[in-house]
């Protein structure tokens, strides 16, 4: 028990350093690519927390979606921008004080919320119970939550189609008409 506890504390410290250090590097790095990589580090730290909390499914999904999909997308898109070529990025623009205000207010709200919430504490037996989350999750998604689940998938489909429509090249109408008549 003690060795388990010690490794958990050790892992928690490392993960916290990863998450906070990564987050700090995202906002302080002057290199856009380094900032994106630091974001991956930070997200990986968050994934580690899920593992520590015995939420294996959440951890794997975090890895799959945030690191596998979103980070790759971010890396790709910053490679297509010109900002990458400029070595020292300016890190703030004229709106910085609005951003700072919003950040501060969010922080206050979160602290108040954390302070006032009564956190239910699961007993020992809940920790010892076998982890059957995936089966329950799957049943819930096709049972009581079937309609929200489908609505979300329709939303994603709409976003996908919208993105394709936006990204498609605008055709010249007269030229396309010529092709159709077989000229």
């Amino acid at each position, binding site marked *: *028990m*003690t*060795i*388990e506890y010690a*490794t958990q504390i050790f892992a928690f410290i490392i993960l916290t350093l990863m998450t906070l250090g990564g987050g700090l590097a995202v906002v302080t790095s002057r*290199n856009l*690519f*380094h900032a994106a*990589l630091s974001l*991956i580090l930070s997200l990986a730290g968050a994934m580690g927390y899920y593992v520590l909390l015995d939420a*294996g*499914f959440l951890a*794997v*999904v975090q*890895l*799959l979606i945030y*690191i*596998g*999909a979103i*980070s*790759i997308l971010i*890396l*790709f898109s910053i*490679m297509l921008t010109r900002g990458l070529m400029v070595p020292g990025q300016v890190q703030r623009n004229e709106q910085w004080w609005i951003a700072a205000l919003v950040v501060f207010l969010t922080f206050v709200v979160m602290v108040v919320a954390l302070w006032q919430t009564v956190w239910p504490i699961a007993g020992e037996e809940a920790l010892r119970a076998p*982890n*059957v*989350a*995936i089966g329950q999750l799957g049943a819930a998604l096709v049972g009581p939550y079937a309609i929200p689940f489908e609505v979300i998938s329709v939303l994603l489909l709409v976003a996908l189609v919208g993105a394709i429509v936006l990204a498609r090249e605008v055709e010249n109408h007269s030229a396309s008409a010529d092709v159709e008549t*077989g000229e």
Partner: protein
Amino acid sequence: MEALIHWLVMTFPPLSEGLARFIVYVLYSAVLAFVAPVIIVVAYTYMERKVLARIQDRIGPNRAGPLGILQGFADAIKMLTKEDVTPACADRVVFNLAPILATIAAILVFAVLPVAPGVIGADPQTGILYVVAVGALGEVAALMAGWSSNNKFALLGAFRAVAQLIAYEVPIVLSILVVVMAAGSMQMSAIVAAQDIPFALTLPVAFLIFLVASIAEIGRSPFDLLEAESEIVAGFHVEYSGMKFAFFFIGEYMHLFASAGIATTLFLGGWRGPFAGPDSLPGVLLGFIYFVIKTTAIIWVMMWVRGTLFRIRIDHLLDFAWKFLVPLGLILMVIVAVALKLPVAGSSGLRWIALLIANFVAALLMVIGVSALARHTRSAALREVAGAE
């Protein structure tokens, strides 16, 4: 593993169970991280050279040691003594991190690989999903290597690599889904336990999709566009030399073994075979031997393909993934889902036959669909030509 922990606690009484568990798992991780890569790389590079030489009517390595079996060690020493070159304007930190990450991504898969009865690093309920997720780290490593090298060929290679990996991840996930539906679990041990008949026999189409897509995922010929010498020099690791290149090399062979091991676990029944079982030490060892034999057989098929087929073009590569493998996987998934819910599904023999029929129906539908589509596009093109004249 559990038996070993039990034995440790019995033999050395001052050890508590937690400590014994800790020691066993740390040792197992050390074996996976430090011993397995060396053995796998040396053994399978030698095998690859010999197999390719045989296919190409050559002798292959035969100087270092009897039959050239020490060739791998000679190569390793050469790698170690090479000069470590970093390009002038490279992004040093990222440049040095990329090969490490590439190797880690491959080694992480081994954590959930059931290599023998009861021997598995971790057996979470999300086992196979974890394998899919860890694959994403390899993409990040490729992008990091390509970008930080400050070389346009490396960057092009990285883009190709990521496009290919993303495209072929979809068919892999679809074929895994079919297996998960048939096994009723994502846990690796449960998938192995569900295979009284290996899934390769009852789900042959899914097996083929997985095999083809995992060859693409490892980036081996005929899908080795990421390192097409005639087009982009050597892909995303063109600027790497010495030990850093060796890391990519190790990562590639670890990935090869891991993919073949996953294919073995999903489709060939993993460690299962006559007299293999978790109860006795000979049973466990026998299970390990079965696992290695099956995995090596799959690797051999991959080498055979590499020695036989030529490289395909990048647009064909992406078309093949999106227009053939993905629709086939989707059709197969729907039909297998229906087959599993048939009333005969209760008795296991009929269930397997139903699955097999479902596979053939899916393959047939796909072939009919593709040929109809091809005929349609061809006649449309012909009409266009005729109209132009």
